[in-house]
């Protein structure tokens, strides 16, 4: 029996600033190679769960454990989680003036691999991934996310995903606010990421478009900080047709 890549037990978490409880006991297992979809109404705690897995200090874990690759990372710092192979694609990627996209990705890559990046090869690899993502190469020399459109920001996140090659990636509404073409492009990038064996995904989404080309193993419904239902991909269609109503009544 292979080991779970991510194992969450009894996870409770609150907002650090005001102690508001958001997550009320989450259990979740993700095996290598699996794609999990996380759905739920606004404010249910989906992003909070993603942020807790990545170790955002804006949230405090009050109970429970998170294990990644057999290691307890419940109280590990975010950078160590990233080095261990976790990745979060941000819902709202942050603008960092004065640091170019290429410098940022290069620094990140060096931090995560611990190796010095060979510039020319690195640039070639970036450019080929950008071609697939239909991103203008000029973005490499622009300040990170500054003045990027919503679509370009999300594409830049997927570009980082493809470069950093984590074991488990959490995509937090990577498809929201994108037009049909951009969603298709982004989902090609995600497909590309999943080609390597042993990788896993948590996709937080409201729509099905990003999922069309992906083989979803499990769908979870999160309501009021609890996982109220888990099933296969058919739940997604059900929710899209009937909304969350029946889960809310539970």
């Amino acid at each position, binding site marked *: 029996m292979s080991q779970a890549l991510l194992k969450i037990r009894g996870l409770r978490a609150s907002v*650090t600033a005001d102690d508001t409880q958001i997550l009320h006991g989450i259990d979740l297992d993700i095996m290598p190679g699996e794609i999990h979809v996380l759905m739920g109404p606004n404010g249910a705690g989906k992003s909070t769960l993603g942020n807790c897995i*990545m*170790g*955002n*200090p*804006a949230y405090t874990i009050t109970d429970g454990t998170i294990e990644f690759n057999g290691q307890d990372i419940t109280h590990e*710092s*975010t*950078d160590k*989680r*990233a*080095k261990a192979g976790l*990745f*979060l694609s*941000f819902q709202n*990627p*942050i603008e*960092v*003036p*004065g*640091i170019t996209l290429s410098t*940022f990705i290069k*620094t*990140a890559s060096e*931090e*995560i691999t611990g190796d010095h990046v060979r510039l020319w090869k690195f640039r070639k690899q970036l450019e080929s991934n950008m071609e697939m993502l239909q991103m203008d190469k000029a973005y490499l020399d622009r*300040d*990170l996310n500054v003045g990027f459109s919503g679509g370009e920001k999300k594409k830049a996140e997927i570009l*980082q995903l493809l470069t*950093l090659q984590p074991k488990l990636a959490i995509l937090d509404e990577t498809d929201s606010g994108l037009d049909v073409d951009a969603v298709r492009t982004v989902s090609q990038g995600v497909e590309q990421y999943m080609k390597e064996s042993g990788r896993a995904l948590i996709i937080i989404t409201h729509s099905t478009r990003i999922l069309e080309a992906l083989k979803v193993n499990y769908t979870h419904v999160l309501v009021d900080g609890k996982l109220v239902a888990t099933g296969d991909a058919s739940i997604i269609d059900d929710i899209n047709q009937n909304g969350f109503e029946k889960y809310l009544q539970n």
Partner: protein
Amino acid sequence: MKEKVQLEDINRSLYDFKDIETEENFYKLDEGLSVDIVEQISREKNDPDWMREFRLHCLDVYNRTAMKDWGPSIEGLNMDDIVTYVRPKTQMSAKWSDVPDDIKNTFERLGIPQAERESLAGVGAQYDSELVYHNVREEVAAMGVIYTDLESALHGPYADMIKEHFMKLVPPTDHKFAALHGAVWSGGSFVYVPPKVTVEIPLQSYFRLNAPGAGQFEHTLIIVDEGADLHFIEGCSAPKYNVANLHAGCVELYVSKDARLRYSTIENWSKNMYNLNTKRALIEEGGKMEWVSGSFGSHVSYLYPMTILNGKNAHMDYTGITFAGATQNLDTGMKVIHNAPDTTSVINAKSISKSGGISTYRSAVVINPKATGSKSTANCESLMLDNESRSDTIPAMDVRTADADIGHEAKIGRISDEAVFYLMSRGMNEESARAMIVSGFANNVSKELPLEYAVEMNNLIRLEMVGSIG
């Protein structure tokens, strides 16, 4: 998660090494200021008569001028304790191999000769009060560019030109430390670029103040003739002693019709230095002045490069960053006088304060009645890295014509926790994440510098950020 800030000193070992100055190797005057001292300096330097008289006149002005009554405190500075003249016992050399080993080692540790080989058209290196090395590439000299120490120039073919310009832009009556400078100035550079000559790679002067309790009073005089183009870089550093040091240099820049001058400074004085420097530029018709300024060191700084746009269409760009850490009070900014029609100025000032450091941006934009159609835009941004630090913006505007376009924007911010989390989620630890955000903030200055200096500046930022996380 709460952030803590350590108040310990950063590791400045690159700059902080001290050379042992033995009595035999250095010639020092007594501390303090008197007619005797000024006359001794004048004799040492073999001044022409007019200069000796000018020094004494400046001393008189100094004694008659009241101490300023604004800005950061300089109570720790006692002129009676400052040695105004320290000369290494060596002659200035044009050959690096002739510079005495101890001094050579100092500059080699700072990377000066290497920078010269790689990216500079000429270098002057000043150690305490005197230049110890001066060299200009043959091809640059062949274009008629003069780059020499000011003392030799006073006795050479450009003597009249110097007499005509020396302390005319910054008269001794300007303020008390300008008068002090006039009385005891020593070292510095003279640059003349003939009409239509473009110097492709920068010239540099590096000032190192090594003696404890000493003052450095170098004078830089640059004249860029019509249609000529020059980039001049000034670098400064000093090791830290427990006694106060003083830097009261003076920079006078003359930019003729349609000429361009870029003046870049990376200042990293030690944190016991009082940096009371005066810089001023006069720009004629169609001329361009570009200031690029990075202020990192010193205990107290007063630094406001001033530009007089004196001819139609003259232009000024000011790009500056100031980083005030623990025990530092850095009062920096700029002043621009629009004195002719259609003159323009663009100001981009940034400041960072940390660990109780105080940074103040102080500026004055003056538009005179005849400067119709002029335009000035200013953008000031401050970044405060903790709650103990302080950042102020004091912009003054004096507009005397209705036909002018003035803009001023100011912004004070902090590093957002979310940005730190974002960078950490890509593998950077908290310290690197913060350092990266600060480097990005300072990027407007570093991208204006030649690569080697941009790297040095980023190293300085990284040094300042080490130990900022508890």
